[in-house]
């Protein structure tokens, strides 16, 4: 099985590919051009960085169209990680308002300024799987995952939420709707439970 990891110059791709290997998937491949998505069975959009810049790059390079064809059109399994999860929402509010891929209803906004809370939210935080979603299978309530982000996702449809977390306020830690999955945390950097989430994605039938 080939899992395409999209290189849009915004992420540590090697750690995703290394983590896929660690859960028994040797088919992780870096995808640099949209045409390559055709021969991938599943797709991972990793990423850190700024929403508007990432979206502009995905638009200019034709990845937006290719992703819509492969994920929405053909139903390929998709996992967005960190910024990659935020990009599947309708609207980003980082800097200028920027439309995202819009596969899930909701927006991406900054953590509110709260005295005593550092932003970005960096580190391990206990996370609660909800709605018994496939992506969080086998992860107990309160398992810690590694996060690094200043912006967070709010879903309009609570049934899209796969896990929640709290940092000054509750936020969405993972999403799942049909063939579309996302994690705000970094599964590739979250030791056992992170690897479990990646394994779940790898093992879901295409």
């Amino acid at each position: 099985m080939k899992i395409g990891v999209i290189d849009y110059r915004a992420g540590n791709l090697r750690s995703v590919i290394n983590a896929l290997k660690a859960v028994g998937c040797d088919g992780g491949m870096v995808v640099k051009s949209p045409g390559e998505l055709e021969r991938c069975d599943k797709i991972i959009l990793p990423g850190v960085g700024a929403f508007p810049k990432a979206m502009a790059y995905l638009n200019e390079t034709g990845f937006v169209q290719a992703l819509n064809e492969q994920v929405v059109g053909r139903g390929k399994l998709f996992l967005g990680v960190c910024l990659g999860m935020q990009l599947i929402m309708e609207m980003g509010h980082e800097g200028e308002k920027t439309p995202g891929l819009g596969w899930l209803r909701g927006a991406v906004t900054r953590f509110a300024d709260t005295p005593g809370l550092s932003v970005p939210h960096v580190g391990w935080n206990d996370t609660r799987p909800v709605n018994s979603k496939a992506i969080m299978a086998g992860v107990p309530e309160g398992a810690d995952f590694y996060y690094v982000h200043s912006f967070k996702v709010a879903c309009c449809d609570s049934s899209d939420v796969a896990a929640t977390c709290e940092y000054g306020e509750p936020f969405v830690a993972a999403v799942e709707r049909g063939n579309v999955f996302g994690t705000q945390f970094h599964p590739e950097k979250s030791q056992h439970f992170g690897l479990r989430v990646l394994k779940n994605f790898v093992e879901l039938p295409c």
Partner: protein
Amino acid sequence: MLSKRVIPCLDVRNGRLTKGVKFEGNVDIGDPVETARKYYEDGADEIVFYDITASHEARGIFLDVVEKVASQIFIPFSVGGGINTVSDMRDVLVAGAEKVSVNSGAVKNPDIISEGAARFGSQCIVLGMDVKRVEKSEAIPSGFEVVIHGGRKYMGMDAIEWAKTGEALGAGEICLNSIDADGTKNGYDIELTRLVAKSVTIPVIASGGAGSPQHMVEAVTTGRATAALIASIVHYGEYTIADLKKHMAEAGVQTRSVW
């Protein structure tokens, strides 16, 4: 709730793990990849590697270490030492590090922080600061001065001002090392840690002086740090990381459970 992080720091010289006191008298204490793997399994929340190799040739050996670590360890790790250009940053990030730490390179050329943040994102730029206590003066109102070259060169910069500047330039975290406390095992410089942590909104990692779990508790409570860097107390087997976390949890500090 966000856990306080326990971060072992590995100094690497010519591909081997070393440890010295106050940046001097380094001795070989093992293999960095094996040691990192042990700390990973024992519950380290993150790992920091410093390349303290002097020669340019040994840089390749260090990057090999980073690559090996990245293929075996699935927690974040940062890499510092000898980072002077955006291209140096890229090398360690491509090798698989999650974050890159700039120290004297940023003191000499602060723009490297903003360039690195623009290119790779703030989340992966850690501003490493080495700080010494000095007499309070007009130039150093806080009485904490930024130093480089392992504490041998005073820069005439106030540590608090430099922390704020680093944040404004786009650093995502500060790793704050007290040269006075480093290697002493007498505890972190809590006053320094607290002053810096109160002056910025980005997370501050306390470094230098950890000799007991109680010191770590102080760093993340009174000191307001979000993480505690440790070295000697785990390198020589005095404590395991699990021991340290257990002690911290008993003192009421939220740490990541090792399941």
